[in-house]
Each structure stands twice: as C-alpha cells, then as structure tokens.
C-alpha cells in the first residue's frame, strides 16, 4: 500500500487528520502525522517530516499532504534529506489537507498506485460540499 504522510503546522491538526483517515481505512494502512515542532510550537520541522516519511516508506511509495506555506518548504527540504532510493518514490500532493488525506487513504487501501493515490488527493479539491 502507498504510505501517506500528513504535514501540518499544528500537531493536533496532523494527528486529527490522521484519525479521520484511519476511520475509513484498515489498520495496516501506513499513515504518519508530522505536525508542529519538536518542542510543541506551531510550525514545521523538515527532520520530523523526514522521519515520518521513512516510517511509512515501502516499495509502493509515499504521498505527502501539507497545509500552509512553510509546510511545503519543509517537506521539500525533507525530500532532499532522504536517501535517494526513498526520495524517488515520494511525491507531494497539491491538495487540501483533510479532504485530500481521506481520499488518498481510501485510494491507497484499495491497493492503488502512487500516481493514482496522488491524483485522488488532488481531485479532492474539486469535491463540492455545498450544492
């Protein structure tokens, strides 16, 4: 299964989003949260993100979802810090965090590929909530 990493400025947002995704998926789905800083502030830490990616990295690859500004910068930094053989199977989805994470998790649990899981996360942007 494709691993999923949820990056947020807030540890609570990252953990909470992970729980929402887990509600709809089997427990063996590789999901990790990387939110906030090591000392409990709001913010992001490239080395925490790097560790989260490595904790869920397998042969099927990893999709990373990030929230605001520096979450993307720190994720790009984390990618550079990864060993090349891990990095080549990690992609950053351009997706809304919560909806994207749930969509990606469901898609991954169905055994879809890295490209398909990323696309599902990104398509979540177009889901209409109010009709």
């Amino acid at each position, binding site marked *: 299964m494709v691993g999923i990493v949820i990056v947020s400025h807030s540890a609570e947002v990252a953990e909470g989003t992970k729980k929402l995704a887990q509600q709809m998926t089997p427990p063996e789905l590789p999901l990790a949260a990387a939110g906030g800083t090591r000392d409990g502030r709001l913010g992001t830490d490239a*080395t925490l993100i790097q560790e989260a990616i490595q904790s869920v990295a397998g042969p099927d690859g990893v999709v990373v979802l990030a929230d605001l500004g520096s979450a993307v910068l720190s994720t790009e930094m984390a990618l550079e810090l990864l060993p090349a053989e891990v990095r080549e199977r990690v992609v950053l989805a351009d997706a809304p965090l919560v909806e994207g994470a749930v969509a990606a998790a469901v898609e991954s649990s169905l055994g879809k590929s890295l490209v398909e899981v990323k696309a599902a996360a990104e398509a979540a942007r177009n889901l209409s909530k109010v009709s």
Partner: protein
Amino acid sequence: MPLTAQELMDMIRAIGQTLEENKAFLTELDSAIGDADHGINMAKGFHAVEEKLPDLTGKDAGTILKTVGMTLVSTVGGAAGPLYGTAFMRAGMAVGSKEVLDTRDLVRALEAAIQGIKQRGKAERGDKTMIDALEPAYEAIEKEIAAGKEAGAALAAGVAAAEAGVEYTKGIIARKGRASYLGERSIGHQDPGATSSYLILKTMAEFLSGRK
C-alpha cells in the same frame, strides 16, 4: 580577513546575539503581516546552534556551516528554518573543508547561500521576502570586492544595500508565505525575513571590521 574556523564560530555566535536582541522587534514585524513568530523562531534556532558550537571546535569551516544549517532546519519551526538552513548548508558546501576563509571564499559562500534561499523559497526580487535584502546586498558586495575593497568594507556596502532593500519591502505587496494572504493590506509593513537577513549581514560586517 582571513577568517579562521574559530572566528567563524564567533561570528555565528554574534549573529545569534543580534537575533536575540531583536527577538521582540522581529516578532512584532511578523505579527503585522504574518504569524507573529519570526523573532521567537530565529532566537530558538540560534540558541540551539549556540549549544552545538562547542562540539565543533577544531572542525573545518564547511562542517561548521553545514551543522549550523541542519540545526536551524530542525529547530526554527517556520519557513525561516528551511530557508536559512539551506543558506548555511550551501555556504558550507561552497567552502568545503577549508580551515581558514579568505575574501573570495566569503563571497562564494554568500552567493551559494543566497542562491539556496532563492531556490528553496522560489522567490524573486519584489516578492517581499529575504531576497529583497539579500540579492542587492550580494551585488553590492561583489562590486566592491571586484574593485579591490577589503571584505569588511565590501560587506558594509552590502549592509547598506540590504537596508535599502528592507525599506523597499514596505511599499510592495507580499507574494510569498503567510503575508500573501493579506494582499494589499501587506503594503506599509517591512518584511520580517528581509529584516532578519539585513540584521545577519550587519552583524557579519561589524564582526569582520572588528567592531563586534
């Protein structure tokens, strides 16, 4: 000039001291157009650096700069972490295993640092970021060095250009980071990142001319 590895560490300590002194000021600037953490984040990062420096005694300049960069990446918390972290790491790669830096090394390191920030932040001049202070500073420094000036004097010219760059950020709209959410409301405020970049260059210039 020349700058030994030990002096390089003292210069980094001086930068940390400047950022500590300006913690409230930088945070106040960031509270006007950002998430009110820039001063706190930079001070946190350089405190962590300060704690690492004793272990680096006897190491070459490249190792020192790269370690400073990695420490900032893992402790700052905001966008400044990967940005300044990348800057120090690229500067470290530029000087390699040298133990004493000359003027040319310094210019090369600065250029690599600024290029690193540009690539990481995908920012150009006029976006209201660190680049608005750093790029004009680098151009001024390079020009002075080419004209045969000492590193300290060249950096002083760079500091003046950076200060003008900070002033310039007051009149423009933020196109990067949290401040870009504010659109036109970001006009009238100077950019906190450009300000910390100016303060760092200013401290380096003061250190190199023996005033700090």
